[in-house]
């Protein structure tokens, strides 16, 4: 298994508050690593620091040996680290198909001028990617929804479309920020099934923030436990289950 992501000593300070405190870990190809911890533990901040939305005070992030730390969010996404958002990041006024197509933006060929003049190079690539987007929706049994306004979907459907959009470009690394929150048990099970398939069949390395402990235990290969910005434990689900620090800091409360 190759190492995809290497996070080393990552810290983020917001004017006095240490939201992320010297966190290190690696993520392997095809692995699912869960990040758990109470609210305000710094999980989303960790994602923001990896994906370029906040500048780390110190520490580095590498993807396959290449440093990402100084890149902007769109550059990091282009390198192959893609993410979803805790509060949902769909574009409600665009259709489901258009939303998935935005995930293929960098894959579509043709310069601004090619597009402006309607040159066949741009049109051909656009058509190919529309086809690809429809195929991806079909895999998730969402193809009948292609022309629906994304804002009109149910919460569960929105989460699934957001994931389809995020993985459309076949990124090696995927960061999912509470993808199952607010979902019905059936939709949760479907979400976990999707995560399993992405990791198992496509070899995507997945970082997963999730609150439901039973889901985490079932889905993750390794778990990183955070509290107050710092890592308090790290290990397999079995190891975490036994860990006293975890029991006290986190599991004890839930």
């Amino acid at each position, binding site marked *: 298994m190759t190492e995809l992501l290497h996070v080393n000593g990552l810290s983020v300070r917001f004017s006095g508050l240490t939201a992320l405190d010297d966190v290190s870990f690696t993520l392997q190809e095809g692995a699912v690593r869960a990040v758990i911890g109470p609210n305000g533990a710094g999980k989303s901040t960790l994602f923001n620091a990896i994906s370029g939305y906040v500048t780390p005070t110190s520490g580095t992030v590498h993807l396959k040996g290449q440093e990402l730390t100084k890149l902007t969010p*769109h550059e990091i996404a282009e390198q192959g680290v893609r993410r979803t958002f805790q509060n949902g990041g769909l574009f409600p006024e*665009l*259709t489901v198909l258009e939303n998935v197509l935005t995930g293929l933006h960098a894959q579509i060929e043709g310069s601004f001028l090619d597009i*402006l003049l309607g040159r066949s190079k741009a049109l051909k690539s656009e058509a190919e990617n529309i086809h690809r987007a429809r195929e991806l929706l079909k895999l998730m049994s969402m193809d009948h929804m292609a022309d*629906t306004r994304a804002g009109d979907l149910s919460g569960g459907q929105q989460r699934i479309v957001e994931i389809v959009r995020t993985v459309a470009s076949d990124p090696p690394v995927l960061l999912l920020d509470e993808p199952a929150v607010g979902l019905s048990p059936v939709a949760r099970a479907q979400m976990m099934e999707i995560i399993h398939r992405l990791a198992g069949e496509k070899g995507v390395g997945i970082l997963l923030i999730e609150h439901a402990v039973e889901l985490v235990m079932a889905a993750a290969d390794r778990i990183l436990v955070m509290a107050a910005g710092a890592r308090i434990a790290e290990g397999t689900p079995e190891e975490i289950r036994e860990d006293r620090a975890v029991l006290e800091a986190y599991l004890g409360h839930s």
Partner: protein
Amino acid sequence: MSTTMPTSRQRRLRTWAFWAVPVLLLLTPLATNAYTQFIINGMLISILVTLGFTLVIGNLGQLAFANTAFFGIGAYASAILSAKLGLPWIMTIPLAGALGALGGFLASSAALRGIRSYYLAIITLAFGELMRWAYLHTKPLTGGTDGLPLPRETMFGISLSDDTLKFYIFLAVTVVLVKATLNLLRSRFGRAVMAVRENEVATASLAIPTARVILTTFIWSGFVVGCAGALFARHVGHVFPESFGMLHLIASFAMVLVGGLGSVLGAVLGAVVLTALPEYLRAFPGMEELFFGLIVAAVLVAMPLGLASLLRRLSPIFVERYYREES
């Protein structure tokens, strides 16, 4: 609630309809008098002005009001290049577009420095007023309050004061720019523009360079409206600073809203309807402004999404989407 999308047959029909409109318009000079032709020429200019405006405030969702500044820059560029440098007017159109694009670049630099919403609105309004001040205070170049007349000129042996000749040129420019804008919107670029409006943070996470999308949209908007300025200079034959003040901005804003924010079809409808309306209101001397305001308000109350939404309800061929299916 699923949107009804056009079938492939309807898409072909739409393509036909798109080209049928300008082709039929080619015949209008046969059926109109000089005055009506002048009004129609003004409509074509308003279509481009409204199109450029709606791209920025509707599609990109930025509260930028530099549109009239782009228009004035284009008009003065065309007039100055014609009158002072002796360039054939037709050649000033792309140059006016380029200077309008430069105006767009300047306006976008405010948005890209994080100046947004009301702050962007006020700074772009100030940009427009600054340009008006510049026209007034650079008399040797612009003629100041006296304005700047365009020189007499002929094309194909016909005087450029001929409204029929102007009509054909304006129509060609309008069709090219509307088609190019549709090409842009119905592509990854158009989706990126909409994505920035909907959720700029999420847009960047999809490897879309948001700053470049904002910059490019402003530049293209400035180009379209700058070209419209060059047409306007020839349309009226004499450019004055007063043509590029708040009144023009408000009228264009009304056209954007009456047509439907962020809609190309809406830009066309809003421009056509609100350019024609004052002509019909001439029957009510002294009440024109009042009726104009009431009608605009009534349309917006009845149809907050503009006239384009009415057509969308009539037929799916009017549904505007941001991808291009082969037909």
